[in-house]
């Protein structure tokens, strides 16, 4: 099978005199390295210069708040079930009186942890979320010294009310439309009066 046009048939024949001098081959090699001196370098000076990312790039997660600043997550656990890497864990708690501004629904996630070392950034949690609470963003998970530091809790995941995380930046129009399309299974509920259409049943 020929994969590239650069492959050469290896032979064990005796070298000719000019080949056994090696000098033409050496000069040939030096010409190649000299040509490379004027080629454009492949380096990206990373902290100074960001590498362009795809519009649908999946990076560090964010737990969104609604327009009033209340956490959208209701700790249903669908993201944890959907997660193929089993990176997500959570503990649910009941909302007390007077916490309506903090949590949107009556149930909320007291603990929500994503292990960034386990996460494969597939985006299935985002797809599974019925409350549009978890999104993957265009941010890059930073390097850490300790394994424990890669387990992101709510302090790192929930967005700040003052500094909202723009999730549309990595969302193409198609992705946005897909997320809000009620006919798709991920947004369907029993209240819509229809059965949930599971994709694996097609």
């Amino acid at each position, binding site marked *: 099978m020929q994969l590239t046009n650069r492959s050469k048939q290896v032979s064990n024949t005796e070298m000719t005199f000019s080949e056994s001098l090696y000098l033409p081959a*050496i000069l040939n*090699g*030096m010409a*190649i*390295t*000299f040509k*490379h*001196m004027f*080629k*454009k*370098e*492949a*380096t990206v*000076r990373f902290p100074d210069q960001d590498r362009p990312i795809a519009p649908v790039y999946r990076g560090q997660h964010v737990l969104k708040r609604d327009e009033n600043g209340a956490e959208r997550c209701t700790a249903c656990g669908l993201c944890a079930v959907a997660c193929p890497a089993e990176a997500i864990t959570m503990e649910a708690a009941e909302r007390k009186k007077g916490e309506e501004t903090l949590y949107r629904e009556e149930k909320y996630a007291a603990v929500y942890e994503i292990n960034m070392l386990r996460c494969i950034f597939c985006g299935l949690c985002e797809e599974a979320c019925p409350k549009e609470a978890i999104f993957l963003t265009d941010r890059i998970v930073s390097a850490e010294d300790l394994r424990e530091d890669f387990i992101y809790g709510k302090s790192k995941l929930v967005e700040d009310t003052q500094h909202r995380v723009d999730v549309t930046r990595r969302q193409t129009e198609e992705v946005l439309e897909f997320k809000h399309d009620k006919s798709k299974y991920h947004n369907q509920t029993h209240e819509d009066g229809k059965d949930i259409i599971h994709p694996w049943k097609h």
Partner: protein
Amino acid sequence: MLSSFLIIKFLLAIAVFAISLGVAAYATYGERKVAAFMQDRIGPDRAGPFGLLQPIADGVKMFMKEDFVPANSNKFLFVLGPSIAMTTALMTAVVVPWASPVNGVALQVTDINIGLLYVFGVVSIGVYGIMIGGWASNNKYSLLGALRASSQMISYEIAMGLSLISIVMITGTMSLGKIVEQQSLGYWNVFLQPLAFLIFLICSFAETNRAPFDLPECETELVGGYHTEYSSMKLGFYLFSEYVNMFNSGAIMASLFFGGYNLPFASYFAQMVGQNWILSLIQFLFFFGKILFFIFLFMWVRWTLPRFRYDQLMTLGWKILLPLSILNIVATGIFMYMSGQIQ
């Protein structure tokens, strides 16, 4: 008169010393940049504009490192090794003529009539620096590196010396100053003795322990070769002496084969500018350019060719270069006899 002579020689010696060290320092930077460019990378660019302060940063780093001496090493020889390597590396440049005389003052520290022999003597002592260092480390990798270094350098010195005999035959002198002067009138020696130049070039790669002859260091096989146990400025001396040696062999090659400080069409230039300090300055810059080209050549080859296997190295030295250089001497002798230069 004597005192002014001494002052001039002293200043020249200091200048040669400073130039050798300065060029060697920036050769380390150049090496990394050339390597980077040849591999489509950027190279050091963090310290100063374009990374130009990198050699200073490296030097400071070397000084700040712990000066470690292994427990069962020979302490005296362990210090002596890098000292010899550095001293001999800096000694070679004194016989190199830098430009034509200014106001009757030769721009050369000393023009001894056996300049070539002196260079060879100093280079031969240089192998002791590596050998003693590798031996004193009390480390098997260091010893293997030192063994390789000594056998390699001794083997290639023979072919190197024999290749230069043909140069001595056609010029009739061993003084570097006179050899360079002769080339201002006629052709550069490289056109008269291309084979001798090729042999000398290959041997100087081997003598400076540069790739493809870097078996004494050989990171992939021997950890660090003869300098495995060295750290701090002792290691710095070894690494630095390699670059000083590169500078020196560039200077020797430029003087012997490429007309030294002579410009192409030297007599024409001399008429145009006149025999004054401006001509000397141009000559010095031109000579410097030739040396820099050779330093670049050393790097260029290093980042192109893979390392020799040990038996290939010995085969090349003893079975190919040595007979070739003897053949070259014989051919030169026959040619000189036929053309009537010798009876």
